[in-house]
């Protein structure tokens, strides 16, 4: 059994009486790719917000390996090794693609440590590799605002890869993508498997089938089931709560 990379222990958040996430306990192994599934409002994105520090939890704990990171400031959690991709693609629009990645390659959090020129030879190598991986080498000198929707998503993935966190949280990385773009995204994500621990929120079952190892199903803020793709697809509780009525499987 591999080491545990992420431990979530009884995590809850209470939005004035509404428990968006209610006592979620789960562990993700080092190098694992975990898919979070669930209907709208099941608490998937909120769970990511809690892990990455965007939302402060009201009870429960989060561990990154052996370090407790519960309710730290976002940038400290990021430095501890949690990277996050947002549902709405967010990149630095007025900077070129290469500049975007160079910024992500920077390892110093504060302003004074960065009062110097250039990002260094290591950064150049990393950025070149990442450009290759996300297929934006040709576009590297374009301003990010000119990228297509799919390319913007890949660039954001590229930012995460460059940041090189231990855990990558991906919130609907294929939202709004064409089939071909979705496929390319799954290639990129598959490429990261093993090197990073990845947690993905995704609705697109075709994509889930392409990448998933283990799936955790959330329902009304709680863990409903956990297992591999087949187990989840045949789990009666899951079918009833989420999949069955619409038959999207």
């Amino acid at each position: 059994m591999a080491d545990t990379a992420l431990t979530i222990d009884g995590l809850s958040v209470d939005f004035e009486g509404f428990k968006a996430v209610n006592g979620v306990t789960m562990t993700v192994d080092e190098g694992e790719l975990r898919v979070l599934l669930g209907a709208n409002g099941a608490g998937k994105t909120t769970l990511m917000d809690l892990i990455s520090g965007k939302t402060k939890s009201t009870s429960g704990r989060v561990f990154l390996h052996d370090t407790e990171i519960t309710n730290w400031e976002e940038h400290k959690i990021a430095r501890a090794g949690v990277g996050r991709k947002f549902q709405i693609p967010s990149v630095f629009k007025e900077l070129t693609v290469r500049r975007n990645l160079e910024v992500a390659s920077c390892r110093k959090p504060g302003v004074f440590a960065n009062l110097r020129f250039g990002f260094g030879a290591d950064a150049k190598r990393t950025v070149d590799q990442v450009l290759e991986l996300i297929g934006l080498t040709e576009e590297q000198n374009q301003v990010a605002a000119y990228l297509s929707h799919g390319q913007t998503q890949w660039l954001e993935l590229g930012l995460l890869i460059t940041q090189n966190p231990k855990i990558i949280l991906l919130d609907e990385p294929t939202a709004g993508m064409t089939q071909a773009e979705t496929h390319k995204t799954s290639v990129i994500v598959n490429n990261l498997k093993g090197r990073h621990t990845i947690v993905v929120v995704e609705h697109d079952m075709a994509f889930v089938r392409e990448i998933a190892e283990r799936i955790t199903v959330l329902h009304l803020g709680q863990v409903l089931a956990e297992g591999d793709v087949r187990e989840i697809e045949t789990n009666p509780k899951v079918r009833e709560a989420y999949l069955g009525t619409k038959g999207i499987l």
Partner: protein
Amino acid sequence: MSSKRPIDWALYAVFVVLIMLAPLVMDSFWLNRVAKYLVYGMLGAAIALSWGYAGILNLGQGLFFGAGAYMLAMSLKLASQTSLQQGSDKPVPDFMLWNAEPGAPTELCCINKASFLWLPFQSQWFGVAMGLVLPVALAGILGTIVFRKRISGVFVSIITLALVLLVRLVVIDAQPITNGFNGLTDLGWFKVGDLEFDPYVVPTYYLVAVSLSLVLVSARLLVETRAGIILQAVRDDQNRARYLGFDVPSYQTFFFAVSAAIAGFAGMLYVIVSEFASPTFMDLTFSITMVVWAAVGGRSSILGACIGAILINVISATVSETEGFAEAWKAVIGLIFVLVVLYLPRGLGGLAHDLVDRFVVRKRGGGERALRVTSTSSQAAE
């Protein structure tokens, strides 16, 4: 993008050469005037740094300008002849006597309750140091509070706007030590060793011109550092930067403070060339005017915003003194502003960049241009 950098720097060089050559063609009256406009240019650059690069629209930049101006003006006031002729062997500002209680001693320490604050300003260099320290400290405190609390956008503008008006009121109200509405006038000349900076001589012009050149080049270099690039990333998407692990408020506060320091420096230079400091520096209209300069010149270009400030002031001076326009010059300036906002939303700096783009791309055979056109049209298609 990198191919454009040498051209950018060439433009800086041309600008510096031009302002260095100005004394060859101008009399001392115009030289003094242009020196003031160069100070405004420095303010434009300060705005470009905070607005264009950090995304912080400061509607109260006059606060930092005024802080710098008053700090040096206090020292120069004590250096003036009249301050020495008030019947004490140490200098005392004349207005303090006009406002003094009957029987108060004619001494800086105790002529009124707060006059002791003036004591260290007997050293001119203390005034100079404070002219930078005070704006930076104010910006540091304000920035730390505002940016740690994640206040952004228009709310920052409103806070800065309110603050400059508040400080203006305080300065006017503290008449015994600030001379209220009248401000500090009848100042001595700034001195470095034996050199006295009479506002109407060439060395004073060069003091301003060299200062401006240094500020422009340093600011430009600063935004090219890693920190400057990360700052632009923060401007584009704060959250993204935060989740990449950057301490976002430290970047915003730092560059806000640098912008404040430049404004404070400009305030000091203004006092040297105009020989007064007054609460009008902290009027709302002045702070807004600075933003207009930067908008016309191009907020995303430090040099552009600087040239915008100089240009608008030269135009308003010439137009307002042209017969027939004496009444209408404000309308002319307003018209220019409207036209720029409508047709050049990125200002003159943006226009220059586009022209350079076109020039560079043509020389390369248009390959990159074709790419650009496709990417823009695909974006339009979405």
